[in-house]
């Protein structure tokens, strides 16, 4: 089985390097095909591993080589494939494969076609390291690796220029890329601190060893480690307050958004919490905090999605919101639930994004939903896919979201955290509303795209075919819930609903479905018949503006952090470094020179004054001697 581990891990690397060979050449179709096949190989390997583990129930571990061996620190490139990992691997490789294939279509006329595939495969490689590593430092490699790939891919169209926030809320791809990288770095510091704490307290970073001895530590230390690691997770999974980068990351090509900013990378934080479940189950108060934060983010992001007009941003906010759900579940101790929602969400969210990609292509990169409408006619398949995705997202039976999201609500109910339950429930309604607002705005109503002179067309068939697996997954995953539970609970703690909750399940399901349906209906009523804009409302309603401007958070960050930092830096350089530090150094030099100039005046060339100085010297040394006497 080890060889499959290697295939799964290194096929993406080979793919990336292969593509990199052609990085500066014009488009080579072979690159797209070869990388897709290589990633597909990784998928196959992952599936084989999945089946194997399903069968044997034993994790597969490999040790590649030593990495950092210093002092007592002994870090190896060690990989282990257990139940959680293999699920993640499968999800990652599946979506990656789809995205790779789809990108052949999406990027077909891009000059940097080859470069794109190189980055994309590099991302997959990093993600595989992230999920497969058997220690925290390996995880961190992947963690940073995906960060870089994300940076490269968000900034893929680096040549676009910076705009003001009014024109483009993300300013520019390169700006968004930097924002994402830096925000993630903030969180990574937390992650590093967690790793340091683990190392100095346990002397190892290997999961199995760490979690075996986690009980030896004091509670306070566990809380510290838990919080530090979660800070890391917050960055990657774009939790409040580090969430702004995710929406801006939509500047990247759409397949990137599908792969990275919906399905895989952003779920790394959730993966970390799930992976560290032995730790978090020891510290339920931190878990509760995570759940509360997740819940908050769920509704917070959903609220922003309500009014946004940008096709991709809406999906991005919905991703944020769904990540909130996952954290809520994980925080409450229902790790497998979180993982399940992760997997399901990956499928339907990738589907939605890719669909959005089709729409963008059709609309010549126009993203404003208010300028679309009636696309159903020309883009039937896309409509179908996005409809499935939206239904899954809204949690309508029998789509995947129904099973995963409902379980989260049940967990919240079961934990007697009714506040969380209520907010999540409400969010479910909002989710349904904005997803279908999107669907209706894009595919129904009047054909507003004529105004901007677009000639929409359906995507190429192979692109549509490529989307099929995702659609199938979005529809069918829910039915494998029981198998899934059985499979992962061999590794993850089981989560038993209380009897009370068991009774309530049906009612809860109905309530949730109702609120989702309400959302869909409201969206239908408001948008399906065509767009009726209430400009006065848009301009004057404070809540609308607040939501539309993302609670002004990017602006606040700009004003509170970015600008003062820039100003402070300028002060540090111009005022402190040049005026104080350097000036005092030069000042000493100047002082010495001035003193030299001053004492040189005594040397006035006049012999008489020289003689006077000499006599004065006698006085002078007498004074020195007198002082010496006095001192003694």
């Amino acid at each position, binding site marked *: 089985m080890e060889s499959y581990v290697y295939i799964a891990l290194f096929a993406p690397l080979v793919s990336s390097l292969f593509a990199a060979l052609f*990085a*500066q050449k014009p488009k080579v179709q072979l690159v797209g095909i070869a990388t897709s096949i290589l990633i597909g190989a990784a998928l196959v390997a992952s599936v084989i591993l999945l089946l194997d583990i399903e069968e044997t129930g034993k994790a597969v571990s490999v040790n590649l*080589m030593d*990495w*950092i*061996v*210093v*002092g*007592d*620190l*002994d870090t190896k490139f060690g990989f282990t494939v257990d139940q959680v990992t293999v699920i993640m691997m499968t999800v990652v490789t599946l979506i990656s494969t789809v995205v790779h294939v789809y990108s052949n279509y999406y990027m077909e006329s891009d000059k940097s076609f080859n470069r794109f595939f190189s980055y994309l495969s590099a991302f997959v490689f990093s993600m595989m390291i992230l999920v497969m590593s058997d220690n925290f*430092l390996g995880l*961190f*490699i992947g963690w*940073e*690796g995906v960060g*870089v790939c994300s*940076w490269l891919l968000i*900034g893929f169209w*680096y*040549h*676009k*220029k*910076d705009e003001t926030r009014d024109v483009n809320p993300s300013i*520019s*791809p*390169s*700006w968004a890329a*930097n924002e994402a*990288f*830096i925000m993630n*770095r*903030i969180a990574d*510091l937390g992650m*590093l*601190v967690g790793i*340091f*704490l683990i*190392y*100095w*307290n*346990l*002397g*190892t970073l290997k999961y199995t*060893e760490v979690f075996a*001895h986690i009980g030896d530590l004091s509670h306070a230390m566990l809380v510290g480690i838990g919080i530090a690691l979660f800070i890391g997770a917050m960055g990657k999974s774009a939790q409040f307050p580090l969430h702004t980068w995710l929406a801006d990351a939509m500047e990247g090509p759409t397949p990137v958004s599908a792969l990275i900013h919906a399905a895989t990378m952003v779920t790394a934080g959730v993966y970390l919490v799930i992976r560290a479940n032995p730790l978090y189950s020891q510290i339920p108060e931190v878990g509760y905090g995570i759940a509360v934060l997740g819940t908050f983010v769920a509704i917070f992001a959903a609220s922003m999605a309500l009014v946004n007009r940008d096709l991709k941003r809406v999906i991005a906010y919905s991703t944020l919101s769904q990540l909130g759900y996952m954290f809520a579940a994980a925080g409450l101790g229902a790790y497998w639930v979180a993982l399940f929602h992760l997997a399901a969400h990956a499928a339907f969210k990738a589907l939605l994004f890719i669909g959005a990609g089709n729409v963008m292509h059709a609309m010549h990169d126009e993203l404003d939903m208010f300028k679309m409408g009636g696309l159903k006619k020309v883009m039937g398949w896309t409509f179908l896919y996005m409809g499935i995705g939206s239904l899954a997202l809204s949690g309508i039976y029998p789509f995947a979201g129904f099973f995963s999201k409902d379980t989260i609500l049940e967990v919240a109910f079961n934990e007697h955290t009714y506040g969380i339950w209520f907010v999540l429930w409400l969010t479910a309604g909002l989710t349904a509303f904005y997803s279908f607002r999107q669907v209706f705005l894009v595919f129904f109503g009047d054909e507003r795209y004529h105004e901007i002179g677009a000639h929409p067309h359906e995507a190429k068939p192979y692109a549509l075919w490529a989307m099929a697996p995702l659609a199938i997954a979005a529809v069918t995953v829910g039915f494998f819930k029981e198998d899934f539970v059985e499979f992962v609970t061999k590794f993850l703690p089981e989560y038993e609903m209380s009897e009370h909750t068991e009774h309530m399940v049906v009612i809860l399901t109905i309530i949730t479905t109702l609120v989702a349906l309400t959302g869909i209906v409201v969206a239908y009523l408001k948008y399906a018949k065509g767009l009726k804009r209430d400009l006065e409302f848009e301009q004057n309603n404070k809540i609308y503006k607040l939501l539309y401007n993302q609670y002004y958070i990017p602006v606040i960050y700009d004003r509170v952090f970015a600008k003062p*930092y*820039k100003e*402070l*830096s*300028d002060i*540090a*350089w*111009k005022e*402190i*470094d040049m005026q104080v*530090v*350097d000036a*005092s*150094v030069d000042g000493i030099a100047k002082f010495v020179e001035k003193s030299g100039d001053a004492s040189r005046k005594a040397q006035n060339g006049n012999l008489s004054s020289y003689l006077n100085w000499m006599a004065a010297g006698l006085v002078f040394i007498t004074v020195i001697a007198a002082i010496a006497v006095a001192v003694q």
Partner: protein
Amino acid sequence: MSNILTVLIFFPLIAAILGLFVSQKSIRVYGITVAAAEFLLSLWLWMSFDTNEAGMQFVEKLKLIPEFGISYYLGVDGISLFIVIMATLMTLIGIIALSVKENLKNMIITLLFLEVAMVGVFVSLDVILFYVFWEFSLVPMLYIIGAWGGDKRLYASIKFFIYTFAGSLVMLVGILYVAYAYYSTTGVWSFSLTDWYGLILPFSVQKYLFWAFFLGFAIKVPMVPFHTWLPYAHGQAPTVGSVILAAVLLKMGSYGFVRFSLPLFPDASVAYITPVVIIAIIMIIYTAMVAYAQKDMKQVIAYSSISHMGIIVLGTFAMNVEGIAGSVFQMLSHGIVSGALFLLVGAIYDRRHTKLLSEFGGIAKVMPNYATIFVIMTMASVGLPLTIGFIGEYLSLLGFFKVSPLLTVIAGTSIILGAVYMLSVVKKTFFGPLTNPENEKLKDLSTKELTALIPLVAIVVWLGIYPKPVLGPINNSTKALVQLMHKKSITPKAQEIILVSKDKGVNK
């Protein structure tokens, strides 16, 4: 070959003198050949280095002034070995990438002299010999900056010289005091470092000596507030000067901390962890901010050097194997990465004769290879795992975390701030539309530049993924160093802080 170190020191010297007879036309080839031979020699040193041995190897001792205890005493251990190799490598690469046209012969001969001094500093085990090379290294650098530098080259070179000279003179007084203390204890004069390692000084003495040595090293590193010579030196120096300055000369200071301050004054070093580290942290954060404010590409790299040197100092004062080994490794990584970054800035400067960020933008389009290598080096600079930059930074922070978690967290902001200024440079230079028409015709990296840069890229990746060949010897020697410090320390605080081995954890 037991006298390989002597060969290593004096081969460039002889080559430099013989170089006077080589004609201007063929001097470049000569320089490359000599530097390559020297580099191969240093590799041979590595090959014949016993990696399991923690102590000094290839020791040579020849009495120079026996009466006064000064000897010609050389040796390398895991700590110095790789810095020596880096010095020879960076010289080779510097010469390969030379874009100087005027007085090329003088430049190459000067570089070879500089190489003598650089190798000498790191292999000297006699303190006076060390000091001789240490001071002598200023002279060729002065000439390089002063003769081939920018508009303010004279100011910059003199500032560089006098500033470092002043610091090292205070250190000289400290050296003489230690020698005297050794003399009063043993009755023999000796300047050999290994002898001094056996000397246990009372704390009241250590504290003054620590600061005397500190001043010398701190200016060289350079630590805030003694750093202002560096931006000038870098800003004015020709590319090769910056490369060697950043890659090797700054390391002399941090190497001094590891080689002298810690083992000679373990108690004082421990007692002054807090002030030193606070300076280091100011250095990390403050210079990162200053770097962000820069308008000149090279100044950004210059200030980033200071920031990274802060991490090195931090790791050194962790007083445990992880931190010190990390800081030694970080010296190498910073050498390679900042050297490469300066080469890159030099490449663009050769084309455009400006380093102002505002002149550029969008040049990734016209210079893709250049952009790729720059981004790789940027990533190494911000400490991305699997590049060389991560390991040192990570280990330094990890090591110091044991001493003070809070300070480490503050220092750790370097990973954020580093990203801020480096990415902002990348963005301003490479991204965005290509607006400046002068940039449209820029040529991508030439073969010459690629020859210089690709080995560095390879090292960045290789040591990022498989650092063991380098980290192993460093680890061994650092362990020995920490054990020595622990054995020597007299104050209880030092006994506690200097950590030979972890006392907690699974592997205890």
